[in-house]
């Protein structure tokens, strides 16, 4: 298992799209280092005979009928938007 030393909080925060102050990055580096050192104990578990469990109870292939139903109007869907116009969410320009 990779150790706490591998964690670069500033880099991972960029992957997670969260800006961090230097102060916060330093605090997290220490705190998450402690957590990663703690989870090292999982190395001791013998997992050679088990499959990974994504869910506690096995249920598979859950589908519902592909039928139209009443749901949000466009206006309702946009009701909480920080910026909107002409029935659209407005964001900064993405493509030049």
């Amino acid at each position, binding site marked *: 298992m990779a150790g706490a030393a591998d964690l670069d909080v500033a880099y991972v925060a960029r992957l997670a799209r969260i*800006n961090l102050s230097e102060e916060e990055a330093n605090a997290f580096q220490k705190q998450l280092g402690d957590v990663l050192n703690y989870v090292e104990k999982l190395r001791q578990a013998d997992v050679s005979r088990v499959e990974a469990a994504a869910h506690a109870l096995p249920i598979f292939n859950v589908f519902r009928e592909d039928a139209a139903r009443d749901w949000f109007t466009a206006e309702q869907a946009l009701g909480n938007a*920080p910026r909107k116009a002409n029935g659209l969410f407005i964001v900064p320009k993405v493509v030049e």
Partner: protein
Amino acid sequence: MTEKDLPALSIADLQSLLRRREVSAREVIDALRERIQAVDVEIGAYLSLDIDAAIKEAEEANIDLPLGGVPLAIKDIINVMGQPCTCASKILRGYRAPYNATVVQRLRAAGAIPFGKTNLDEFAMGSSTENSALKLTRNPWDLSRVPGGSSGGSAAAVAADAAFGALGSDTGGSIRQPAALSGVVGFKPTYGRVSRFGLVAFASSLDQIGPLTKTVRDSALIMNAIAGHDPQDSTSLNEPVPDYVAKLGNDLRGVRLGVPKEYMIEGIDPQVKAAIDAAVKQMNSLGAEIVDVSLPHTDYAVAVYYILATAEASANLARFDGVRYGYRAENPEDMLDLYGRTREQGFGPEVKRRIILGTYVLSSGYYDAYYLRAQKVRELIRQDFAEAFEKVDALISPTSPVPAFKLGERTGDPLQMYLADIFTIAANLAGICGISVPCGFAEVDGRRLPIGLQLLGKPLDEARILQVAHAYEQSTDWHKARPSIASPK
């Protein structure tokens, strides 16, 4: 009975009065509003109230429905149409729910009135409610202490008689632990028993909605209304729902209860240990057979949880990006700047920590070492429980190793805070059901602090857990004790 005494009633007792037409649903709402006004300045359980709508609903309430005219509080991470749903985060300030969660729809169909939203740790991430970005909630038994978390607002409201009952959500103990620390009943159903549709997702494979109430019977009443299959939640189980209230009884003859030896660890408060030992004896005297069992992988549970829960959270919380709802940073230069600053300013420190940890354990080169390995150990933990349940009907342990701790005592050390959930987390990993019921008090600094007993049951065996908890509760007076703030003035 005067109107002032009404908020102290259990849901079941309130219903008897309502059905005998001794009080009206309107009078109940008025009495509850007065009670909230009197105590919530000190407790801080509620983030928002919608009393006007509640009065309207009360005036039209059909008292003969299963929860007719009963006002219930809802953890502010569950969508109630037209009401805020802040998740106690700045990033959802101003958001109004455009739809009802399935549980809210079902409560309404059963006649209940969801009138207010309760405080929580931001996005349910925490064990003390101190991670709320919006409000401090205090323990009604000692205002200098935490109510537990993350459903701390729901637990404190019920404990202070400022709610007849409430909904919470439990990802690693967030219903059971605050119930224990605040001296109320908290029930976590089997994963998939209650629909998660409309619950803001934290860790989708672990989250489950359940009730916090004054009595076990009240939890059974709420479960009757909210349990069952929902096509809008693909993880919802399509299994028949028994009548949980009808199955309550006072006899424990023939029931086999297991005491997991790994749960009697060092670090359990001696007063907590003594209370649990006494409760085990009590259940034995009610006819239950007590059996020693082993859950050998217990020591890995917290580590597994903080890998899987953070991994799932990092994906689930990607949706809070300042585009479709909630807070957006001002004057963004481009999309990356909009995302980065919105999330910097919108999320509190614990949420950021967990998103970063979750992103790390899922990142290229580390996935196998952390995430995949944790999923495998999760399976070992699930098998531990499956084997134990071949020998016993339910497991007994403390809910929390310690009674309510002081505000601020653990906020500086996230790992210490995580260890507060040591007895509750495994149930979420294994997907089983569990309950916390009051089982005594610890004397700390001249104050009485509640202690909770946890019972864990097989998947979909909610009826049995409720029955055992009810039989124990009815043989004690612990659930009748109220904090001094809760007595009518």
